[in-house]
């Protein structure tokens, strides 16, 4: 794994990608700090990070787009498969390299609360916890985008899929307020989600039968439960949107100071789940 990690990290650092990513993230967070903390005079650094999360909408998909898709495009994925190395080591090496590129600006962010401290009292514990959660949020999004990158050999498609996925997660809390609390609205929401899953299954397998089975396995039980117990659907989809969005949990901490073990488990489960899915997706090439 360390060989892949070093190679990937070197690729980011020898390329404009890595530096541009770090520069834009620092520029954005710097501007937000200037606006919130220095210009408006607010001492809460966590509000700066809460505003900075919007930068991740574009930055993370662009950082991750080449991760797996480039190997498929250049046929170097076959090379990895021929090495005496587990696929999980390759995927983890790549994931950790991206996480390192993301973590470097996060480490630099640790200086900001100290700068703020020179102008007045700052709650350092909250500020540094917010930076840690910002890192964990990025780790979750990187895992999602790496998985999407493993579904295609086209870097642009990988980036577009990544932006769409991060946008869904970013705007899910807002959507949860817009979607009516009625049972039929929730049912339609779940059906759309099931069709999205089927779409991902198609991208992963290019097999219409698997796509249809995935859609059927998701939609048929949903329909049966909806017919049998319509009332249980009331407000269910908006609640789910609130719960699954890592941005919602991060925002809850930054804006209201609330954070639960449940939230932490959810945030940490993203990397575990999506790294696992990426390994399956990369290994699938063997069975094509």
């Amino acid at each position, binding site marked *: 794994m*360390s*060989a*892949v990690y*070093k*190679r990937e990290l*070197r*690729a980011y650092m*020898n*390329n404009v990608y890595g530096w541009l990513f770090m520069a834009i993230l620092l520029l954005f967070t710097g501007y937000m700090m200037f606006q919130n903390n220095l210009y408006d005079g607010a001492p809460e650094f966590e509000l700066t990070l809460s505003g900075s999360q919007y930068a991740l909408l574009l930055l993370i998909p662009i950082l991750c787009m080449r991760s797996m898709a480039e190997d498929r495009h*250049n*046929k*170097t994925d*076959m*090379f990895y*498969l*021929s*090495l*005496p*190395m*587990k696929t999980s080591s390759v995927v983890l090496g790549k994931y950790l390299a991206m996480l390192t590129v993301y973590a470097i600006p996060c480490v630099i962010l640790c200086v900001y609360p100290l700068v703020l401290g020179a102008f007045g009292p700052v709650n350092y514990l909250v500020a540094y916890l917010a930076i840690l959660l910002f890192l964990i949020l990025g780790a979750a999004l990187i895992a999602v985008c790496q998985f999407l990158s493993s579904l295609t050999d086209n870097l642009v498609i990988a980036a577009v899929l990544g932006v769409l996925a991060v946008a869904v997660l970013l705007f899910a809390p807002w959507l949860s307020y817009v979607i009516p609390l009625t049972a039929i609205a929730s049912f339609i929401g779940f059906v759309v989600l099931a069709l999205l899953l089927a779409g991902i299954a198609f991208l992963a397998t290019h097999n219409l039968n698997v796509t249809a089975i995935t859609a059927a396995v998701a939609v048929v039980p949903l329909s049966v439960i909806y017919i049998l117990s319509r009332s249980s659907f009331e407000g269910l989809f908006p609640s789910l949107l609130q719960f699954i969005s890592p941005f919602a949990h991060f925002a809850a901490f930054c804006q209201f100071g609330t954070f639960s073990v449940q939230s932490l488990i959810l945030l940490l489960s993203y990397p575990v789940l999506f790294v696992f899915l990426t390994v399956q997706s990369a290994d699938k*090439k*063997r*069975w*094509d």
Partner: protein
Amino acid sequence: MIEVQNLTKVYGQKTAVENVSFKIRNGRIYGLLGPNGAGKSTTMNIMTGCLSPTEGTVLINGYDICDQPIEAKRQIGYLPEQPPLFIDMTPAEYLTFVAEAKGVSDDLIDRQVKEAMQVTDILSVKDRLIRNLSKGYRQRVGIAQAVLGSPDIIILDEPTVGLDPQQLTEIRALVRKLGEKLTVIISSHILSEIAELCDHVIILSEGHVVADDDMAELEARMNPETTLRMTVKADEAGAGAVLKSIEGVNTVTKLSESEADGTVTLQVTTAPDTDLRDEIFFAMAERRYAVLSTETVEQSLEEIFLSLTAKKSKSEEVHD
């Protein structure tokens, strides 16, 4: 040693290879020959663990590529049809990365990388970016990564495709050099290349093994009789009668006749491993028939290949 047993790979509705079995013994150069789409790359990808077989097993020095992939892959070095190069690295950086990825211990990495660069003669370009190297040098870097990690077996999938004649000669010389120490399996659809490089040939056609022999044995098997082609200044009936009177002559076939010159060209088959040219010459001379030319006809690898692959196609048609 590699043992491929009853290998089958099905892609959707298409069977790429079916029930393929062969053995690769140590210390020889093997050629995997077949027309495009015969299943060479699929077979190699399965042997190297890049693809999983639908059925069958591959044992590499006793390790099953599916059940013990890490141990099995340590025994082989693989150069796929498209060299797996990272063009943003120099050959030295790339080979160091491959050595680390193959689990070469830290104290051996520098030595192995240097040896691989020496063997493949890329020391002069070791610090240039791979993206700036010619196709021939890229192929050498690809072969260098295959020999890292001290594998016993090197598998090269069409290593000379797209090279110019100079590069082609150099890569063939390199393969020959590797074959002195290692077992080499090379796939190609260039018959002369296989004939020049390999001790043993496995011919695939439409996903099946149609021949698996040493080069010399294959030629002997495909030439069960000695065949002579001769041009004689005589009429067909007279020359034919002389030839049929000689003991050991099996058949006489007229190929062409020239009334203007008064010559006839005949094909004569005799018992295997017999040379009747002297007898034929003196018999013809007795009848004052001038033998203008005589040549022994042997099936070339190209003819053997065409005959074997054509046989396979024909049997498939009959079967259908």
